[in-house]
Structure formats: C-alpha cells, structure tokens
C-alpha cells in the first residue's frame, strides 16, 4: 500500500495550549481514513496543520514522500492537498461559478476547468442549478456541496474534509456521505474529520480515535465500530 500522507510525531500549539501531542497518522492511496473524537480533541487541528494554517512545532508531514511541514497554505494546496474547512467557508459574495473557479486557482487550462465543473455537477446536480447565484444565498446543504465541489476543482491527491455533516439535516448528511463514498470510489484519497462517528466509520476503511491531542486508538473502521469503548464514548451507547 502506497501512503499518500504520512504524519509523524506531530506537535502543534495554539499559543500556550498544547493542541497536538505527538500524532502519527498514515493515509494510503484510495482510502477513506477518519479521525473521530470529542470536541476539542484536536481533529480539526490536524487538518489545519496539514494545510499550513496552524504551524507544527515538531514532527513531519509528508505528501507522496515530499515534506510539506509548515509550508504556507497556498503552497500546500499547489502540491495536491485540498482542504474543505469547518463551516464550509464559501465566498459569500462570489457566484457559485466563481467559487468553483477559485477552487481551480492553480489550473490554467480552461477546458480542464470546464471538465471538472461537469464532474462536480454530476456529483451535485443542485450546484448546476445555482450556478449564477451568490454563494451566500445557498442553503447550508448546498454550501457543503459547493465546498466539496470547490475542493475537487484542483484534482487533489488527498481531500481533507472537516465536519461535512455539521449543521445539516439528517437527510442531507446521508446524501453528502453517499457522495463522499462515490468520490472515494473514483479513486480519491480522503481524510475525514467527523463528530458523527457512526456515519464516518460506516464509509471509512480505517479510523483513529483522538483524545486531548493524542491518538488513543487506531484500527479498521469495522473493528472500531464494535469496540466497546468507542461505542460508549462516541456512538452514543450507554
């Protein structure tokens, strides 16, 4: 198995807060790997450190064997990482089309951009209907669809998804996860951060459980789903 992303001994601080305390995560090509854990465990911080928004104090992050630790966000993106941030972060005053074009910032071939837009419309036909509307006028679910489509415009080697289910109705969550599975089936490697541990483990191949900045458990998703402590802590069983 060929690792796309290798994180070794990662330490990240927010001011004086030691947010990540030596994290090791590997994502292999074609996998969906999920990071689960309670609020503030450091799940999002891992993604933010990968894409360069937060700075690593120690440790290394390698993408396809190349070191990308502490590169600036736009450089990391250029190297093949696409990060769908928490809260979707659609550009509210840009049209849906412009949002997608911004996602393809480093793509200079217009036919390639059109082709990838068509691909996105195939995943999310609703995006196409809203093409000339401003991003800020979309509903939460549509914004999430747009955020994922926008990230796919750069045809990344790895897609980082931060809480795609946040604030969405259960029907929409189902739909989004269905599409995440389809995106993965077409060969995209995905690192998924999710509060909704059950949904995440259902589509993931492997999972890591985080607690206060440390990995306390890692296993295949199937094994985690039947693990007693995981069921108690994250799957809502008493």
């Amino acid at each position, binding site marked *: 198995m060929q690792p796309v992303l290798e994180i070794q001994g990662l330490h990240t601080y927010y001011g004086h807060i030691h947010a990540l305390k030596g994290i090791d995560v590997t994502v292999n090509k074609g996998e969906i790997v999920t990071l689960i854990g309670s609020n503030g465990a450091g799940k999002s911080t891992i993604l933010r450190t990968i*894409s*360069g*928004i937060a700075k690593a104090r120690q440790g290394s992050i390698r993408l396809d064997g190349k070191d990308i630790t502490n590169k*600036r*966000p*736009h450089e990391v*993106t*250029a190297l093949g990482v*696409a*990060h769908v*941030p928490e*809260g979707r*972060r659609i*550009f*509210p*005053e*840009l049209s849906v089309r*412009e949002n997608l*074009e*911004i*996602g393809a*910032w*480093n793509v200079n071939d217009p036919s390639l951009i059109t082709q990838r837009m068509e691909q996105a419309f195939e995943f999310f036909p609703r995006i*196409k*209907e*809203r*093409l*000339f*509307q*401003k991003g*800020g*006028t979309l509903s939460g679910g549509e*914004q999430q669809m747009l955020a994922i489509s*926008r990230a796919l415009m*750069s045809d990344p080697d790895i897609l980082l998804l931060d809480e795609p289910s946040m*604030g969405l109705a259960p029907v929409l969550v189902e739909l989004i996860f269905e599409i995440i599975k389809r995106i993965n089936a077409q060969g995209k490697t995905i690192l998924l951060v999710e509060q909704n541990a059950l949904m995440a483990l259902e589509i993931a191949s492997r999972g890591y459980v985080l607690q206060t900045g440390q990995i306390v458990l890692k296993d295949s998703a199937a094994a985690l789903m039947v693990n007693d402590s995981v069921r108690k802590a994250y799957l809502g069983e008493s």
Partner: protein
Amino acid sequence: MATDTTSTSLESAAQGVSVTGWEAFKNSWFYKFTLFPLGQIFGFILGVSVILTVLALLLAVVFPEPRENINLTQQIARQLPDMIIGGVSIGFVYAMIALGYTLVYGVLKFINFAHSEFFMVGSVVGFEVMQRIGAAGEGVLEAWNPILLIVALVLSGMVISGTLAVIVERVAYRPLRGAPRLVPLISAIGVSFLLIDVVRGFAAITRNDFNLTYPVSQVSFFQQRPEITLTPENAPLLQFWFTAANRDEIDIGLRMTSLIIIVAAILMLLILNWFVNGTKQGRGIRAVSQDMATAGLMGINANLMISLTFFLGGAFGGAAGVLYGLNVGTVTPFVGFIPGLTAFTAAVLGGIGNMTGALLGGLALGLIETFLNGILVYFPAFGQRYTPVFTFSVLILVLLFRPSGLLGAKVDEKV
C-alpha cells in the same frame, strides 16, 4: 442579492434552456463591463446634480437676495453648467482616490491613511516628468501629441505611486498584520508624514521651491475651452432656463483639462471594474477580501493579492494626482491632505469597501463642493472658505446616522 427574476432566468439557463434577448444581453461582456458601469456613472451624476439643484433653488426661495442686486435664482441658473462640470471633474478625482481607500479596506479592513500621499506623489511625478520633457527645449511639449503626453504623464504617475504603495505595504503594514487595529493605523500616519517630508526635501533640493507648477501653458491643447452656446433658437425646450437666468443665451464652456479628467477617469474606472469583476486576478482579490484564510486553502497567495490591491489603489491615486495637477496647475508636497480627507469622506459616504460606493461618494462630494463654492460666495457671512466645514459635516453625519454608507450593506455572517 439575486432577485427572483434573475435567479429564475439563470436557473433556466443552467438547465440548458437557451436564453435569448434581454437576458443573454445582460450576461454579455459589453453590458457588464461597458454599458452598465457607464449607466451607473451617468445615473449618479444626473441624480446628484438634480438633488443639489433642487436644494440650491430651495435656498434661493429662502434667501432670494442674499446681497444687494444679487438674485440668487438667476445666479444659480447662470452658473449651473459650470458648477456641474467642475463638480464632476473634481468628483472623479475624489472617486479615484476613494477607490484606493476602499480597495485596501476591502481586503485588509484597515484605513490606509498614507493613501493621500500616493496621490501627492503622483501629482509631483506628473510635474517632474512634464517639466523635464519641457526643459528639453522650447516648443518640445507643444510638439508632443497631447493625448500621448497625457498617457505618458498618467502612466508614470501610476507606476511610481503604485510601486510606492506596494513598498509601503511590504515595509510598514505587513509586519504589523495581526497586531491590534490601531497599530497599523498609527504606522500609516507615520508613513504619511515621512512621504510628505521626503518629497518636500526632494523639492527643496532640486527646485528650491515647494510650489511645483505644471508647464501647462506651454501646450496650447490644454488651454482650449470648447464652448457650446445655447440660444432659444437651438434649444427651444430650455426656454424656462433662459427665463430663470434672465439671459438670451447661455454658454456652456468646458476647460480642456476638466474634459481630460472626465474622459481619463471614465476609461480607467471601466478598466478597473473589468479587472476586478472580470479577470482571474480580480476574482482572487475579491476572494481574499471575503475570506483570507480560505483563499489560501484554494491556492491563492494572499500576500500577492494584497500587494496587487495596493498597487491598484496606489496607481489610481497617482493617476488622480497627475490629472488633478494638470487641472489646478500648481501642486505642493502638502497637496494630498485635503483631497485625501475628502476622498476618505467620499469612501465612507458611499460605503467603505464598496467600489461603486466610492464612485458615488466621490462624485457626490465633488458636486456638493462646487455647488457650495458657487453659492456661498453670495453669502457675506459665510464665503467659500466654509466649504470644507460642510464637506466634513457630511462625514460626521454619515458616521452618526449611517456608518455603513449609502451603498454599504450590513452583512450578517452565516454560521
């Protein structure tokens, strides 16, 4: 904000239904980047002029004869064309400066108080270039194609002011990003003083004089004053005007330098609008201004976009400086202060961060100023020197009652 009509029609477009006629035309390049902005410009000029004329006439009703033998209504009717033309030309200068404030504010949420100095530097650069061309020999300036001369002067002002703005951002603002908001503001004021004094030193050493007079008189083209004379014969519909002015004919004269400002500003505003709303780099600027962190995640180098924004703002300030210098004739190292503050007021009036607002605010303030200049003369207790009082009262009133400006909308953040 997408209205119902546009969203439904665009949806049908997206669903593959071919759009024809008006809808297709509205999406065309010609409409979006020429016709619509031009319509806005003329609409603003017309709207503000009409409002101010009505206000002036109301004033004339209250004070029909502010001085002996002065009929205010008559004076207003006689001066109207001059006031409007003068107001529009200085208004475009304000609008071009205001765009610099607004562009930078849009991206960094920071008022660049050194911006007025990019305008000043532009005006001094224009003088230096023109003076040096003219110094080559008698008649050299006259021999230049006047259009080419204007383009050369404006371009040199733009390049130098734009580059200066980029350097200032790199040296004085970027290291302070993330600092409390007051800190870069103080730095900007420091930069402003520094630039004034550097230019002052330069003028003192090279010219031994702070009054830098454009050699406009050496170019006959700039001295021209095209005129139209309206008489009851060629404009029978304007009979009411001749009656109000108590004249048989009305001369509408246009100083060539005012005309240059108007034409150059309109062209540049169209280009800027196209650049920001119609190109990839412009899209990048707008993305950075809406969400800098996310723009980074999309692969956009935010610092590069910020530099580009400063270049655009500085270049527009510089161009405004050159055009202003050509129009008023004499500039000094201190020339940036009042126009800069007025343009800042214009940006706030229109809604800071909003480009259309800067245009509207600039034109409105330019017209308000010339109308006041034209009318206050007749009020012995006031006089023209009170014009800035009214201008800056606008600033205070806007800040008190509508801080988001005329066109600035309060944006609620969607969580």
